[in-house]
């Protein structure tokens, strides 16, 4: 992990128009949470509905997409990654440094706002907030790692990532039973469900898999995606055409 690379990545990520969306979206969620609280007088079910569907289902994957593709995608796109690759820094360090920045950004701009929004929208002793916080943390890690690896793999990372996040996780995940077992969102909700214990079903937090399965599959995906990303970075070929 290379601190210079991390610094460069931070500056690159937060200095672009991308960062505008990264700030606006969590604010939107917080606003909605406040509105939900006012409207439903802090009902936990309303809060869970908002965070579970909009927060975990739409906002989190999209933000992870923006962040994950933003740490390395633009550099590969315009070819300036060459400068980094030509330095005597192991490819492993480069990718891990960028991944670290991406994960930290996800935590700050996505996970923490989700925790805060849950608390604002309606909670009991911060139980729901911690549950969703845990789920968001695990899912965020997985999504971000997947999207960073995807950015190294293909120039169309955004489109593929969108298809995955939207079609696979949201739409198909809602209709096709088998898909739910292979969904990051379900894996991440498993520990949350476990954490809430008997309250989980009442509050609308449920997962299609058990906690051990969920955690292990998450670990497999995170480690696998990281390893694959590093391997691909070692043999990166820069194409001139779009």
């Amino acid at each position, binding site marked *: 992990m290379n601190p210079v690379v991390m610094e460069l990545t931070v500056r690159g990520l937060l200095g672009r128009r991308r960062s505008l969306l990264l700030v606006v979206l969590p604010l939107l969620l917080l606003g909605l949470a406040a509105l939900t609280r*006012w409207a439903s007088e802090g009902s936990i079910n309303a809060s869970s509905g908002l965070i579970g569907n909009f927060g975990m289902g739409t*906002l989190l994957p999209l933000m992870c997409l923006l962040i994950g*593709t933003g740490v390395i*995608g*633009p550099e590969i*796109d315009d070819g300036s990654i060459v400068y980094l690759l030509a330095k005597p820094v192991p490819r492993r360090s480069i990718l891990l440094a960028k991944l670290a920045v991406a994960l930290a950004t996800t935590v700050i701009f996505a996970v923490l706002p989700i925790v805060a929004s849950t608390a604002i929208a309606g909670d009991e002793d911060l139980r729901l907030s911690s549950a969703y916080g845990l789920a968001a943390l695990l899912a965020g890690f997985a999504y971000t790692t997947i999207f960073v690896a995807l950015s190294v793999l293909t120039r169309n990372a955004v489109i593929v990532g*969108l298809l995955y996040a939207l079609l696979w996780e949201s739409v198909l995940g809602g209709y096709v039973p088998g898909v739910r077992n292979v969904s990051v969102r379900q894996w991440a909700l498993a520990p949350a469900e476990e954490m809430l214990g008997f309250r989980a079903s009442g509050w609308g937090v449920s997962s299609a898999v058990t906690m051990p399965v969920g955690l292990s599959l998450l670990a497999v995906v995170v480690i696998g995606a990281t390893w694959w990303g590093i391997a691909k970075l070692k043999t990166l070929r820069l194409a001139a055409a*779009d």
Partner: protein
Amino acid sequence: MSAPTPPPAGPPAVPPAPGTGSPERRADVIHDIGFRHYAGERFGRGWIVRSLLVDTVRGVFGIGRPARTKVMPWVLVGILLLPPAIIALSVLLTGGNELPMSYTEFLGQFQLPLTLFVAGAAPYAVSRDLRHGVMPLYLSRPMVRTDYVLARLGGLVIALFAVMALPQTLLMVGALLAELPVGDQLVGWAGGLLASALLALLLGVVGLAIAAFTPRRGLGVAAIVTILLVVTGVSFALSGIALDQGADELAVLGGAIDPYRLVDGLAVWILGVDSTIPEFAVTQAWQGGLFALTYIAAIAAFGGLLMLRYRKAARL
């Protein structure tokens, strides 16, 4: 003694056709083989704008471009054509006398493929030229800045309209084959086309405005999808909250910020069709009026943003 008359002064000797005189073929030598001037027709702005518009439509669908650019748009078109085919077949086989899904409902139910289509098409239309700095080459031609923007916008809107109208037409043809009442179907179909036109224009303007703000194609795609999805999510959340509070009429207004619900609401109000989401159906005239105003304001606002962006960005 008669001198041989000189041959009549006919046309001067014709030069050898370019390329056949076997000049040296060093790759970096520039040959002078006679510059021919052009005294033919030159078309005006109107033709140029139409030409660029057609180019944009063709490019959105990947015609005249490498094969991999055809995948996304045609896959989405296929996805959109499947349900009407299935519905038509099912009506044919089960012998019902009514379509399970109306023409305008179709647009609301298949938001996602439409969103993905505009998210892919809008950046193609504008981001490439901005990214590679091609604007000076357009601006130094006999066209005005707004010509370029309108041509690109028109191309995108027409492409979107085609993507929406084709499935609806397929649905109509299927319905007619299933011997459903002709009059009803034609009226419904025409209404569907009107809704498609409204939606195509709105999505086109919004998508283009967002895409024009970043020269990066990837970010443009992500931004359009994110914004459209988030806006839908927020509108449902707001409507849900209003419904909980018992303010049913206000709940309908939540749809004003979502392009799909906005156009759906307009269709309900103008055409009297069923709303895609019955709980949020437009029932009052003032709601309809507000929707209409919002639509016009949105077109003006995003259109203005687009023009502003080009005034700033398209400097030589």
